[in-house]
């Protein structure tokens, strides 16, 4: 949208041309009035400053500190150890186990979040009675904290005193040891129960952004509902799918509460999620250096996964 300032801009740019010195350039000898571009840049930086300060203090400085700590060992992480912690990480069966467990968890929650979220979005995108209530009900678990969800499901799944087995008993069905026989799958299902409402909302927004005219054109060309889904809906939802996939992978790799609240990593480390594992390395084994190295490795893995996903997603982007 053109503004008054923009219209006057060419007349207020004495710093352009051979004397241009970047966004903060002033007049000759740096003493003249600021150019419009420089004023804009300065305003932008001033507005960005609080956020940058916040990120620096709460993200970048701690990340730098974690990298620094990862090069040290001992209870206080004060003995320089070079890359020793990183070497140990690749040789540690417990770290490997937790990484594999976390990958499986991430695959399960990511695929599940996309399939369930899209399915639910398609369902609530139709004209249904009480649609708003249905959407709200599906979103409520996402608004609940992991701690509450964890405690809730622990009580539901308790093999002796839980509601689920009690119901099975009522119907003369065999009871199940949910957290013993398939603990990781159970955690995936609980996580999907919690996050599917959120992914549904994202897909719903994506669905409502697809112009109706494409469907009408396809319909006139004789495309059936299945063809319309595969040829129009799914390709045009690619940006949403990419976003959901990236966010689900990141949150899957960073999952902690499920193991911390529900299973404590058990039975026998079968749900020892990576972040839960590195938390225990730090606060149970008091090995902050090694724990920091595990954190840095996770950061790298997340960055690589995200970059790969973004690249793959961009290649498949479709425009009509």
């Amino acid at each position, binding site marked *: 949208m053109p503004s008054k300032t923009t219209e006057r801009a060419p007349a207020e740019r004495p710093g352009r041309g051979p004397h241009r010195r970047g966004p903060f350039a002033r007049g000759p000898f740096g*003493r003249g009035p*600021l150019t419009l571009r420089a*004023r804009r840049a*300065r*305003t932008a930086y*001033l*507005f960005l*400053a*609080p*956020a940058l*300060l*916040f990120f620096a*203090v*709460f993200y970048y400085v701690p990340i730098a500190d974690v990298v620094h700590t990862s090069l040290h060992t001992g*209870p*206080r*992480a004060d003995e320089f150890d070079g890359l020793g912690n990183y070497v140990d990480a690749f040789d540690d*069966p*417990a770290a490997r186990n937790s990484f594999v467990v976390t990958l499986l968890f991430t695959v399960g929650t990511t695929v599940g979040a996309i399939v369930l979220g899209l399915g639910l979005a398609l369902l609530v995108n139709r004209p249904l009675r009480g649609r708003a209530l249905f959407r709200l009900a599906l979103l409520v678990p996402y608004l609940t904290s992991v701690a509450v969800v964890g405690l809730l499901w*622990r009580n539901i*799944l*308790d*093999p*002796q*005193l839980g509601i689920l087995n009690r119901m099975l*008993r009522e119907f003369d069905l065999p009871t199940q*040891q949910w*957290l*013993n026989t398939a*603990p990781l799958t159970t955690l995936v299902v609980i996580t999907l129960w919690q996050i599917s409402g959120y992914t549904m909302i994202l897909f719903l927004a994506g669905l409502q952004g697809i112009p109706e005219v494409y469907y009408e054109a396809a319909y006139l060309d004789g495309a059936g509902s299945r063809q319309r889904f595969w040829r129009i809906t799914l390709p045009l939802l690619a940006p949403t799918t990419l976003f959901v996939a990236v966010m689900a992978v990141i949150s899957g790799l960073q999952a902690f509460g499920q193991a*911390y*609240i*529900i*299973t*404590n*990593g*058990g*039975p*026998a*480390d*079968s*749900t020892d999620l990576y972040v839960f594992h590195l938390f*225990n390395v*730090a*606060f*149970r*084994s*008091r090995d*902050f250096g090694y724990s920091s190295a595990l954190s840095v490795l996770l950061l790298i893995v997340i960055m690589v996964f995200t970059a790969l996903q973004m690249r793959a997603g961009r290649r498949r982007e479709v425009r009509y």
Partner: protein
Amino acid sequence: MSRTGSPHTPHDGSRAPAPPSRRRVLALAGGAAATLPLGGCGAGAPEVRGGGGGGGAGTVSVYWNAGHDYAAYRAAVAAFEKEHGVTVRMQKYQWPDMRTRILTDFASGNVPDLVEEPGGWTQEFALSGDVLSLQDRLDADGARMGYPDDWQPAAVRHNEHRGETYGIQLHQTCSLLLYNKAMFRRARVAPPTTWEEVVRVGRRLTTGDVFGIALNQDQSYAWPWLLQNGVRLYDPESRALLAPRAAAVEALRFQADLVHEHEVSAVPTPGTDYSGPQKLLSAERTAMILSGPWDLEPIRKSSPDLELGVAQVPRRRRRSTVLAGTSVFIPAKARHPDLAWDLVKRLTTLRTETAVTEKEGMLMPRRSWTSQPVVRDDPVTKAFAEGLTYAEDPYRGAYLTGRYGELSVDLFRNLYQGVVMQRRPVEEAYDEYVSAGRKLIRG
């Protein structure tokens, strides 16, 4: 930020200051907002006002277990506050949260003045130099407070490191057999006294969805059986881990068999706490559990009509059970160590101990406590007091490896849960544990 010039005011001061623009006001407001979270960083950190060291006005910061906020301790703290003119700030935590907190405090150097710990931390943190040695203070005050003569020897040993005392035992507990008297009466059986009887009695008591015994998902509850078979976590002299092997394998297999072979116990469910068996006993879904006095109050509260019995643990090669309990220590960098020491003395008097037992049923480490009427006249407390005479610390010796956490929790949980919950072959799981443990100790 030293620069104060606005976009309208060059920093050479050649112009008169212009009133702040809307943009600048917004930018400053944004900056101020960003500093708010920084101000919150110190929230909850140990706070000290006024004089430090030995006394004067100020705040004495104490980390305490959330379940041990007893009236007798509150009374002792109130008297302490009145006499010294200080405020005691009792910050209550569950053990895992307290550990996270205290380790963070050690790293920052901003520590509380006194910490209650669940057993093992005193030696572990003494090893890393984070705990104050109490030896000088005990040399001065020990005789008056009856230390060490009036404390159970195990309680004294439990808080020693390289010949010096670093902590004082606050509670001393042990695990015994808690059982539902009515269920035993109906099945016409008596509490088991041997492992064979555990199986036999368990079978008599198991009917439908009620089990004779309930094993705990928490690995530490495996130790009574291991101790009864003469197993120790670590022997510093021979450097043997979980030895003797045959006895350890047999004790682990016995527990797995209770679940899978004899089917007298439900499969324990993985989780974050150790209250599963207590809930089953309260709900009359199991007839007996191995547990300590910490489960008495929840059982009485949730099932006031339940006829609760307490029996000594079964024997195998010998009678033994887990010695547990809490200690208090003063961090090396505490700002008020002398005040903290005075508070320790008040919290561990025989009078306070007796009052806590009377109101809460908690067990205590003083020898003279065992002869108090409150112990002698209560059958439950008396039974636990008897248990204390043969209870043992299974981790003794392991604290000094510097790998106590991994050996007793992480790796051992893997072994116990693998065998009891997932039916892993015992020998294979055992060998894996020992191999990983040895590697850890070697560093």
